[in-house]
């Protein structure tokens, strides 16, 4: 049931794909802002340069935690693409983020601490939604295994429209897009120093960036599942979803954490209850 080959392929290819997506993201963002923007491969140049920087640290243990972050995020993605249990994928993803948070705590910096607390708020805000996404897939397809959800054969998006809306709303936070990029972001004008990554530099920061790439590909994979019955539709849908997220990112200002948490929870509750209740009332569960 679990195709480890795909998992290994993910570990190798996802950074390439993720970096490419990040490059396109920056280019599209620039165009939206009326700039030319960097080359598509700029993200690779940036990360490559980070690894050439002087090795420095604030607390020796920070690299250990960030390494844990990278390893477990790659692991959860690999598990997803190998077709494993979606809930286990989510739990491994949570574990990886805890490593990031603990890394930020370990450096004992006031700015990193604010970022760490906000990263935790982000986790708390989106955890219900991503659990409910997997519950929705289970109710619709009868399985928690990604391989079986992907092979369901019908358009899951039509069975799970509410869940998809909730997921889309929470995805903004997961992709670290404004207005929900409260822990760390790419918009200097609204950032508290550099949030959770304040004290990370050089190769440590490079590892964080690569982890973000892995995560982006994993999230794209989850989005894909809603449309998996038809690859063509899926490609278009995923591209549109990502484009919409970039658009939202560029047209909104960072929200306060209270609003971010409250609104994501509210949207999660309303959209999933309305959707999933159908399965219970209809006796399909």
């Amino acid at each position: 049931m679990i195709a480890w080959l795909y998992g290994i392929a993910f570990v190798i290819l996802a950074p390439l794909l993720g970096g490419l997506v990040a490059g396109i993201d920056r280019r599209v963002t620039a165009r939206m802002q009326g700039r030319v923007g960097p080359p598509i491969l700029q993200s690779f140049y940036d990360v490559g340069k980070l690894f050439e920087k002087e090795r420095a640290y604030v607390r020796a243990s920070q690299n250990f935690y960030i390494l844990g972050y990278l390893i477990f995020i790659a692991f959860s993605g690999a598990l997803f693409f190998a077709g494993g249990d979606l809930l286990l994928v989510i739990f491994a993803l949570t574990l990886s983020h805890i490593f990031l948070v603990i890394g930020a705590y370990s450096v004992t910096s006031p700015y990193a601490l604010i970022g760490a607390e906000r990263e935790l708020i982000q986790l708390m805000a989106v955890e219900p939604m991503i659990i409910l996404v997997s519950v929705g897939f289970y109710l619709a397809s009868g399985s928690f295994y990604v391989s079986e959800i992907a092979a369901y054969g019908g358009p899951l998006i039509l069975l799970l429209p509410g869940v998809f809306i909730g997921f889309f709303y929470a995805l903004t936070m997961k992709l670290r897009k404004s207005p929900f990029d409260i822990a760390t972001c790419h918009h200097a004008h609204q950032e508290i120093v550099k949030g959770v990554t304040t004290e990370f530099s050089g190769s440590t920061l490079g590892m964080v960036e690569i982890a973000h790439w892995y995560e982006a590909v994993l999230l794209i994979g989850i989005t894909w599942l809603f449309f998996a019955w038809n690859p063509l539709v899926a490609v278009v849908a995923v591209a549109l979803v990502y484009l919409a997220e970039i658009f939202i990112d560029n047209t909104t200002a960072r929200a306060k954490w209270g609003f971010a948490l409250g609104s994501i929870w509210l949207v999660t509750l309303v959209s999933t209850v309305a959707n999933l209740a159908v399965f219970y009332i209809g006796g399909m569960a």
Partner: protein
Amino acid sequence: MELLLFLILFPLLTAVLCLVLPDHPIRRWVIRVSGVLIGAGAVYLLVTSYDSGMRLIDVPHEPVGMIMQVIVLAIALLVLYLGVRYRKPLAVGLILVQTALVQYFEFQYAPGLAMEANLFVDEFSIIMALIIGVIGSLICIYAISYMRCYHEHHPEIEDRRRSFFFIMFVFLSAMFGIVFSNNLLWFFFFWEVTTLASFLLIGYTRTEEATNNAFLALHMNLLGGIGFALALLYIGVTGAPLGLDRLVEGGAAVALVPAVLIAFAGLTKSAQLPFSSWLLGAMVAPTPVSALLHSSTMVKAGVYAIIKFAPVLSGTVPGLMVALVGGTTFFLASAMAITQSNAKRMLAYSTIANLGLVVACGGIGTYEAVWAAILLIVFHAVAKSLLFLSVGTVEHQIHSRDIEDMDGLIVKMPRVAAMILIGITGMFLAPFGMLISKWASLRAFIDAPGGLVFVLLIAFGSGVTLFFWAKWLGRLITRPLDEENIEGRVKTEEISVLFALSALVIGVCLLFPRIAHSLVEPYVLSIYGMVTQLGQDNEIIMILMLAMILVLPLTMLYFGNGRDRRKLDVYMSGRATTPDMHFKGSAGIDRQLSLHNYYLEGYFGEGKLMRIGVAVSVLLVLTMLELIVVPGVLA
């Protein structure tokens, strides 16, 4: 059979020895040796009976019943005396009502009820016996040096360690009694002993606060006891079987009313809303007491009773009410834990929340839910006892149990901090135990009728849970200053117990598939004829993750020395900062860097959520009782 009697009676013998022996190395050795023997007895029970299924054991009712009745009356008199002495009319009233009910049952109905077997053992009681025997004994051994230290720190408190250890071991004995009793009258007897024991332990310091909290616990548990007594009376009136096995086999038609009444008693004992306040108040007691109440005894008795009656509750409306009380408690108690900076109080909320999950599983009562519930009990017991005892040790060294004061603990007390880390990760992170069981309960809820409510409660509850655990985790490894290691002051015995419990936390995670296959699954199969599993590939992945987490610290050998890298200072916005983190703040005022966690009072305020929780749960509990009182409603 001899083994069961040994497990019930031997702690009693130790208790008496603790009472008569003076504070002398002999008493300490008696406690250590007895602890080891009790633990060994529980393990021996596992080795000899794990594959023999459910076995009824016939122990003659007389003269045991007579002795029990005398003790019950003695307990009633003691409570009556204390109630009058401390002017607690409620306690007096409750004990009078309860005694009257039980005595009426004893004289009117008990002689007419035939009992086939008074004791039994099955896989679930073996699991419970292991929790009580191994963890309970470790806590008692830990308490030896803890209590000595405690009285050195608190000279104003009268040293009553003799009765302390007496009650601790009586508690263990009563717990063994509960999990081995097939006769519900015996069950009830041991149940009442745990109520009294917890009352006495909570009031150990005899301060005004301790006395009040002890009576709060007593009130609530006596109320639950009345529920239990009514269940007995119902059995007497209707002629339903008095044996636990036969009663549960009878199903909802015969056993629903007693099941609901006993579940009510279970809700009080496992500190579910609206009865949560007694467990929060119980933390005034010395830490080993908290550890005992939270992990291996008392609250576990409550959920044990509910799980035992889960097959009866399953699919009924009162059962749904029980489950809703548990689900609500899980979510709200987790949310309230966010606002707590007192480590013991936070742990208490977390206990209440996790028991809520167990109760929700019990009320749902499907085979998947019961499977998840038993695993929850196991994992919670090991991790929570470790956390409580670690906090106790930390408190004695840094003189605070506030999470905000625990920064730098990884430097000050590296081994204890590492063990708290193990305990915390054990409570909420994959691939550790509690997460496995939460996962299993989520799957159980999805398939249950009306399960959407529970799915939502668990989804939101998990988000909240990870917030409050992770910020404590972070606190421990934040190091504002270079501090010295003060761990050498901790007694070796305390550290050894903590080591043993840490090893248990990791051990049960590694052995979890084995525990599930050889104990939990046969039990569930014997009751429901069906069984669930997480799937072998998932188990392999979990073990793989665990291995990765255990290996990952080895990279510290490379990163830890910082040989090939430059040390930088923390970014302080360019302000000149001294090595002890002083800097000139605005208007030139000298300040020191201090870091604090978020507690989100505005969103998760304890008072607000508690009011909501009590209102909702009172409504649910009343509905549950109404359903069995008003005739015809259920039909």
